[in-house]
């Protein structure tokens, strides 16, 4: 965990005071809505269908137990007793009153959290691997760099009124769990000749014009991270399109200029910046690293007797096989808490659950909680000997559904039930599908499968990169859904292919089931996953059978 110091705390207080003043000026009419909107957005405040929504930043997805309890308090006191975890490792409250927002923010600031830059045309919360600091396949903990970027990007005086929003993601592991190829800037930490650096990708993104990011630099020494980002952002701020909101993201600038020409412009700008004040030296890294509290891991054996014994219980064994992943420290494990119980809205968590999870994190997980971009929570550090007891406790509060990474671990945006931009609902589709595949044994047999649902083309549900993607479209006030197939968000990121005309809500579950039956019939073995089968066969065999005979 990064521990805020006096500077960070003072900054947050000043931010709350500034927002309090802005809200007061809006309520008095001194600021009009056009002026106020960008200011509130940069504090994470949207106006949705029913109320204001507050999006709270969870820096690179890392939360402490006291922070999670503060979120629970805000959920109870200012909202309706729950929050919604998003695909960008943030949390949203759906029913907040504008006049009460400064007080809610002041409470969050007490524990070092806030809504700064969770919306608006600025640099958003930098996201990373939910398993950072725990995954065995990681080269270095990427949160160090995410924190360096957080500080640099916070109220950046030059980059707060960009053409459009700007999202940065970092991975430091072999397996990309941060979807860096679909971000405005993706950073892949790797080593060259023993030195740490980054592959830099730009221009990825979903939304109405999806692109996979292009590599503009194979290896950027870590010392140059900020100067290079500043060069990219300056190139974008000066040259990105501002004439059309749908063409204002950096991906369009990169596409229109060509990645090579864009890279040349960035490199030229960077040469003028690289030896300046942004260069990071060892002391700079050491200073940030010193404020990360690393758990004092116990020396423990892998597979302790208590765990082996508990695995005789089939229910525990099923959960263990599904939700528990290997940890880099012997005797420890990474545990995913499923926020996808059958029939409930994906990613929602009640205040009571948050409090209970905070207690369990302190008891079993070194006090740390992560938010994963799949809208689940993670305990990154759990002693293996505690797994049976933890499982019982998680199950008692409804977050031990053994469906992590399976067909019912659905990513879905809030959709028209909450969102003012949505064309259709998403949550009821997720509910239908999760009820259809409620048999966890059957879901486990189907294996790894990502179903992503968006209620409009803005693609907050990441449908483009779902193995099965579902996109809501409206036709004459009726909800219809398009299905895409073969999308991926990992290091082989790919945009899914549309398989045919949109179908009504009532037919979605059947269509998805037919896709899955096709896969089960065609897979070479249970080891061949759904997406591997689509890779091998292409979408054609699936297309043919997805639609009911008419």
């Amino acid at each position: 965990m990064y521990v805020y110091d006096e500077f960070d705390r003072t900054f947050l207080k000043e931010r709350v005071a500034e927002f309090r003043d802005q809200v007061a000026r809006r309520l008095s009419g001194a600021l009009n809505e056009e002026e106020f909107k960008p200011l509130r957005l940069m504090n994470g405040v949207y106006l949705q269908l029913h109320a204001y929504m507050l999006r709270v930043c969870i820096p690179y997805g890392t939360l402490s137990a006291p922070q999670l309890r503060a979120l629970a308090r805000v959920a109870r006191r200012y909202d309706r007793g729950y929050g919604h975890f998003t695909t960008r490792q943030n949390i949203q409250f759906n029913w907040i009153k504008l006049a009460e927002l400064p007080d809610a923010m002041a409470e969050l600031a007490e524990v070092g959290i806030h809504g700064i830059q969770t919306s608006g045309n600025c640099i958003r919360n930098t996201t990373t691997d939910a398993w950072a600091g725990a995954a065995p396949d990681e080269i270095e903990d990427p949160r160090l760099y995410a924190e360096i970027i957080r500080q640099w990007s916070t109220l950046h005086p030059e980059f707060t009124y960009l053409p459009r929003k700007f999202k940065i993601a970092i991975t430091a592991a072999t397996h990309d769990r941060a979807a860096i190829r679909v971000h405005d800037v993706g950073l892949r930490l790797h080593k060259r000749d023993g030195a740490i650096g980054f592959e830099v990708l730009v221009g990825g993104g979903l939304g109405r014009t999806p692109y996979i990011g292009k590599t503009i630099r194979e290896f950027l020494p870590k010392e140059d991270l900020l100067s290079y980002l500043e060069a990219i952002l300056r190139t974008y701020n000066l040259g990105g399109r501002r004439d059309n909101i749908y063409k204002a993201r950096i991906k369009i600038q990169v596409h229109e200029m060509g990645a090579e020409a864009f890279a040349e412009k960035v490199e030229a700008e960077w040469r003028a910046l690289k030896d300046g004040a942004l260069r990071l030296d060892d002391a700079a890294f050491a200073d940030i690293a010193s404020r990360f509290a690393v758990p004092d891991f116990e020396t423990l054996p892998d597979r302790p007797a208590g765990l082996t014994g508990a695995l005789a219980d089939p229910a525990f064994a099923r959960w263990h096989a599904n939700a528990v992943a290997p940890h880099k420290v012997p005797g420890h494990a990474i545990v995913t808490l499923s926020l996808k119980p059958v029939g409930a809205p994906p990613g929602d968590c009640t205040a009571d659950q948050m409090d209970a999870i905070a207690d369990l994190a302190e008891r079993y997980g070194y006090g740390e909680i992560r938010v994963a971009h799949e809208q689940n929570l993670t305990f990154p550090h759990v002693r293996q000997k505690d797994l049976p007891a933890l499982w019982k406790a998680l199950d008692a509060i409804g977050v031990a559904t053994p469906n992590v990474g399976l067909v019912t671990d659905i990513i879905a945006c809030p959709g028209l039930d909450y969102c003012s931009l949505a064309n259709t609902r998403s949550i009821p589709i997720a509910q239908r599908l999760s009820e259809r595949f409620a048999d966890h044994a059957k879901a486990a047999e189907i294996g790894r499968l990502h179903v992503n649902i968006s209620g409009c083309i803005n693609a907050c549900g990441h449908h483009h990169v779902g193995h099965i993607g579902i996109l809501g479209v409206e036709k004459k006030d009726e909800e219809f859904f398009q299905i895409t197939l073969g999308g991926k968000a990992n290091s082989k990121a790919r945009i899914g292919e549309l398989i045919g005309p949109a179908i009504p809500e009532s037919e979605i579950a059947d269509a998805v089931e037919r896709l899955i039956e096709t896969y089960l019939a065609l897979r070479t073995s249970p080891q061949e996953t759904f997406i591997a089968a689509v890779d091998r066969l292409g979408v054609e065999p699936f297309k043919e059978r997805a639609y009911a005979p008419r």
Partner: protein
Amino acid sequence: MTSPLQRKLKISGPTAITANRLADGVVVWLTASGRWSERLADAAVRDTGEGVQALLAVAHGDENTAVGAYPAPVRRTADGRIAPANLRERIRVEGPTVALPTAIALPGAA
């Protein structure tokens, strides 16, 4: 349903003006006397482009009370009530179509 703010004003049936109240975001409807009400039943309903334009001008002049005003299609029910005419407006009047998580009893999954 396409965000009404992106649509051109094209009135094809009974229409009311709706917005969200500035201080708390609550859904409100413009009444015939130019005030805002939380009840759709109180809304002024117009059937012509000119009628709707006139209401909209009143609403836009009151942006410090209610924000994002736009024309919403409504219908008159057989018993003379006003009801929302599409899914989006139905959700704004009645709330989400899904149960809030606090209302769902979460069963143990084991």
